[in-house]
């Protein structure tokens, strides 16, 4: 059976500075699995990104290959080798 693809989870500079990791390499078949694998590598990451229900906090954006998971309908999206999941701060207001 083929192994799961390799994905890179990229953290925003603000978090990377204090967590000591900017790019987390994981093997995962979905975005959700990739995030779980990232949390396993950097346990404090879940605390920073997720609320008590395990959902992303209000102003946390998860972007899979340039498209936010809000647009793709959640974290079920399939991944392939070389994909990038980028965590961003959603900016609101004007």
């Amino acid at each position, binding site marked *: 059976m083929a192994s799961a693809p390799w994905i890179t989870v990229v953290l925003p500079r603000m978090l990377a500075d204090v967590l000591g990791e900017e790019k987390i390499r994981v093997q995962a078949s979905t975005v959700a699995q990739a995030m779980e694998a990232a949390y396993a590598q950097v346990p404090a990451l879940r605390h920073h990104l997720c609320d008590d229900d395990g959902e992303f906090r209000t*102003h*946390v954006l998860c972007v899979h290959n340039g498209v936010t998971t809000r647009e793709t309908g959640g974290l079920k999206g399939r991944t392939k080798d070389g994909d990038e999941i980028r965590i961003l701060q959603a900016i609101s207001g004007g």
Partner: protein
Amino acid sequence: MADRVVVCAGTKRGLFFLESDKGRSTWKLSGPHLKSWQVYHAVIDTRSTPRLHAAAVSNTFAATTASGELSGLKFEAAKKPPIPPKLLPKQAQFIKKWNLPSEPRIWHMEPGRPGEKGVVYAGTAPAALFRSEDDGKTWAEVKGLSKHPSRKNWTPGAGGLCLHSIQLDPKNANRMYVGISSAGIFRTDDGGKSWKPANKGITGFEGGKILKSGEIGTCVHKLLLHPSGRLYQQNHIGVYRSDNQADSWERIDQGLPYDFGFGLALDPSNADTCYVTPLEPEGGMYRATAGKFRVYQLKGNGAPAWDELSNGLPSEGAYLSVLREGMAQDTLSPCGVYVATGTGQVFHSPDAGATWKTIATHLPPILSVSAAVV
């Protein structure tokens, strides 16, 4: 290496350092570190190799503590951060009604006593006390305080329900004090297992009644313990001191232009004085100095009287706020006093308040200031 003074200015946009030699005449600014984090408080732990502990808050990500050796300028988030308990329903309703902050935050960092290697305390909102025994990597809630029977009656202040003051008795390893807005002051004599309210003599926020022994319901803004054992506090209503481990408090703000203020500083070599920056309480939620910026110094031990310190401070057009972590002192003699504003200035006196100068300006809004000799 010659001793130097390092001032931490925690701002809404990171942490800045101001450094000087012991003469404290010229200062070098560096930063921001912890860029983009709101640094509610930062303190340099000088018990061994100087180490920074910071309270880092964000509107996007969860609040955390960040710690690391000062020389490395690399400050790592806690692996197991302090996660405050939930507001009780009545407190949550109060917060919603008055549109007060409710997001969990970290307000204050306090290194342990000299012999308590690796011990650090943190105060949070919602109000709780946390203790780390590994220099801030992991934290555990001090449940004895969180389970206090009065907790259901702790009322949030304008900054939320926050534990913002932590003071350790240097002579009694089992005694410490905390200040919670707007519950009041609590003291433990058994290392945190049990706590009792210590607000006798303080004006409460409900009807202005003077609190009796065991009562809560006062909005302490800052609590400091002098090495001699004397306690001082700047309250929402008045300034107080205590010479009996907070069993009772004496009001001492007679002569100040306003009884309202947030910041407080002490002189480590003189137990009989303290420094405050009274703020005009009018003006809605933006409490500020009313045109002239003044620090006031308590004159000695007798009937309360204050010196208005003005030499080098702005005398007109100064409508500046000073928040609860906005004043600090160093440990040199004469002591240095530092006052930081919500509009990015740091005023400093190298001579216990006699003269002042501006050592930083144009910084982001300053939430906290502290000073260490390293």
